[in-house]
């Protein structure tokens, strides 16, 4: 367990700047997720913390000590790679013991540590096997086990679940959450999957093109996105964006004209907003009403309907927007070709200016403080998979 702090950290490869100045404060025992599209620099940032790449400028401290020039092995970190990086010629036991052997730790101590880690991860019966004899999930656990034995201050995960199939991913997600609660460790986790981010994180760091777009708890990002990028990245299905024009702006909010002519008042700060200005309205599919309930409605034509049984997604078209997503429950009777009026409420909408920044909400949405995903501490883990 440790704190990690980045101060204006920059990283350039040759003349290309990948990380353009990142400030971050990670607290003891926090589970922080770096998330963002491909190429945003999240893996690079992780590798900078690990010491696998040099920091071009800025400072990294772990537990208050400057780490810029310290080699990886001395930073007190452990890393789980996307492809697990197991030593193929060594057994599971030897893989986990390797680092400790290099540190010349006593054989008995090594044995204790390895067996303890194996116990936590249910690997005891696999200790003598070679990696090629293991399944994906088992290799994943060995990779985690190798990190645990080092007793690191900070665990680093680089997209560890990307190589697993969907079902396994869900299971491993729960195991990692359980690991966090059992081990009481600081964990930094990189993924491009926003579902993993939402379910595992105490704090999410959204990155784009080497810059931090927003930092906050999962629900904080869901309810109070600070810009269009974060708003569109967090939440699945993606938020709908509708181009609108301002008709009025006062202390109660900004009123915009929707496609179809209805006016909608959105409770955001009106400072600097003029009638006639063009803005972008953001509304999540789950906040749209197929029956037209709400403060205002948009006339749409249904183009595609996807029925998943429990949910139904309707892809609709309206003036100015190619396709919007409307989420309703399984009982919807929507059909392609239907003309509907989709209802929205001002309180669940967001407005973004020409610079893609969100206009601040007049009132905080307290749903953002419900809390984060969690797991019962000490609960027995999921049954060992048969694979």
């Amino acid at each position, binding site marked *: 367990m440790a704190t990690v702090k980045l101060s204006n950290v920059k990283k350039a490869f040759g003349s290309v700047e990948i990380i353009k100045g990142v400030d971050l404060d990670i607290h003891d025992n926090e589970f922080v997720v770096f998330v963002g599209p491909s190429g945003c620099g999240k893996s690079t940032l992780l590798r900078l913390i690990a010491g696998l790449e040099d920091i071009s400028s800025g400072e990294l401290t772990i537990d208050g000590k400057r780490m810029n020039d310290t080699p990886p092995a001395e930073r007190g970190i*452990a890393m789980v*790679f996307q492809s697990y*990086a197991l030593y193929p010629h060594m057994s599971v036991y030897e893989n986990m013991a390797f680092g400790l052997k*290099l540190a010349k730790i006593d054989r008995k101590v090594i044995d204790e540590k390895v067996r303890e880690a194996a116990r936590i991860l249910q690997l005891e019966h696999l200790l003598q096997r070679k990696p090629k004899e293991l399944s994906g999930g088992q290799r994943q656990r060995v990779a985690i086990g190798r990190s645990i034995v080092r007793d690191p201050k900070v665990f680093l995960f680089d997209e560890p679940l990307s190589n697993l199939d969907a079902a396994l991913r869900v299971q491993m997600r729960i195991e990692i959450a359980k690991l966090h609660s059992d081990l009481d460790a600081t964990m930094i986790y990189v993924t491009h999957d926003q579902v993993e981010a939402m379910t595992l994180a105490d704090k999410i760091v959204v990155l784009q093109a080497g810059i931090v777009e927003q930092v906050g708890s999962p629900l904080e990002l869901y309810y109070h996105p600070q810009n269009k990028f974060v708003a569109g990245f967090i939440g699945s299905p993606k938020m709908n964006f509708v181009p609108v024009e301002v008709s009025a702006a006062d202390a109660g909010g900004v009123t915009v004209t929707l496609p179809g002519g209805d006016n909608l008042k959105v409770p955001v700060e009106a400072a600097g907003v003029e009638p006639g200005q063009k803005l972008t309205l953001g509304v999540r599919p789950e906040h749209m009403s197929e029956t037209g309930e709400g403060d205002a409605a948009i006339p749409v034509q249904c183009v595609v309907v996807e029925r998943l049984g429990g949910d139904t997604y309707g892809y609709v078209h309206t003036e100015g927007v190619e396709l919007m997503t409307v989420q309703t429950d399984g009982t919807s009777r929507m059909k392609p070709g239907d003309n509907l009026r989709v209802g929205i409420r001002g309180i669940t909408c967001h407005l973004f200016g020409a610079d893609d920044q969100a206009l601040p909400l007049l009132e905080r949405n307290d749903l953002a403080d419900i809390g984060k995903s969690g797991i019962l501490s000490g609960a027995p883990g999921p049954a060992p998979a048969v694979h």
Partner: protein
Amino acid sequence: MASQLIGAVIAIVLGIGFSLFYFAGTNWALDHWLGDRSDAAGNRVSRAHRRESIRPWLFIAPALLILGVYLVYPVVETLRLSFFDDTGEGFVGLANYIWAFQDGEFLLAIRNNLMWLIIVPSASTGLGLLIATLADRVPWGTVAKSLIFMPMAISFVGASVIWKFVYDYRGPDAEQIGILNAIVVSLGGDPVHWISLPFWNNLFLMVILIWIQTPFAMVIFSAALRGVPMDTIEAARIDGAKPVQIFFKVVLPQIMSTVVVVWTTITIIVLKIFDIVLAMTNGQWNTEVLANLMYDWMFRGGGDFGRGSTIAIVIMVAVIPIMIWNIRRFQKEEGMR
């Protein structure tokens, strides 16, 4: 000169043309004579079945014929000849073999081959590995590798000329034009006639083969090293391993099978070494090797087929087990059934 050129071009064209003609011609003939016909009622009778069962043989006939004559027959015949006398007429049983293992030259050749076998593969493999590793992490590595690779393109004889130049010896009072002697003299020593030095001269011949074979090892290892997943190396860094430890404990074990293949391949080449010894010393000064000896006996005193064949068999017996093993491994690597 011009007429020579024209003659050469004609020979080349004829040779290639004939083979092309064979394939095109026979296939056309097949299609023509066993083509689909119409029967009395005007229906189309397909003779495809007969035609297509003949066609494969057209495709493989030349290959089978040539292989039979040039490889199958000789193997059998060499074995047979080894039991006959120098003209190949009189049966002598195991006399040739008995002679061989008592013949001073033969035993010397075996001793030399053994020396070559121990030194050259290990030196080439080791150096090749070293160079591949070093060149991997340097931006000018590709250029370095190309330069070192160049000796592989030239003939053994060409290489021998180059190194004979390096080993050149002039009398102690003359100016040395061979690099090696020049260095020795500039350090205060006397020039040496390297290739006649007893026992050590073999080493100087081996250097030539090492010079040529190391790039082979280097190329194969370069590819193999690239196949080692980068994150096993990074994981080792995080585990606290120093670069040398990473190499020996993480990288080398992962390319071990390649090391073995390279080693055995070079071993096979060494067993058959001929050109270098022929060009540099022709076996003089106790540098004789088996392949050279065999060639010698093929033409000595009008040609002694019996003894020459015997030596060929000895070479084969040494080479074949290694080759079989090598091919098996190669097939495994390629994932072939």
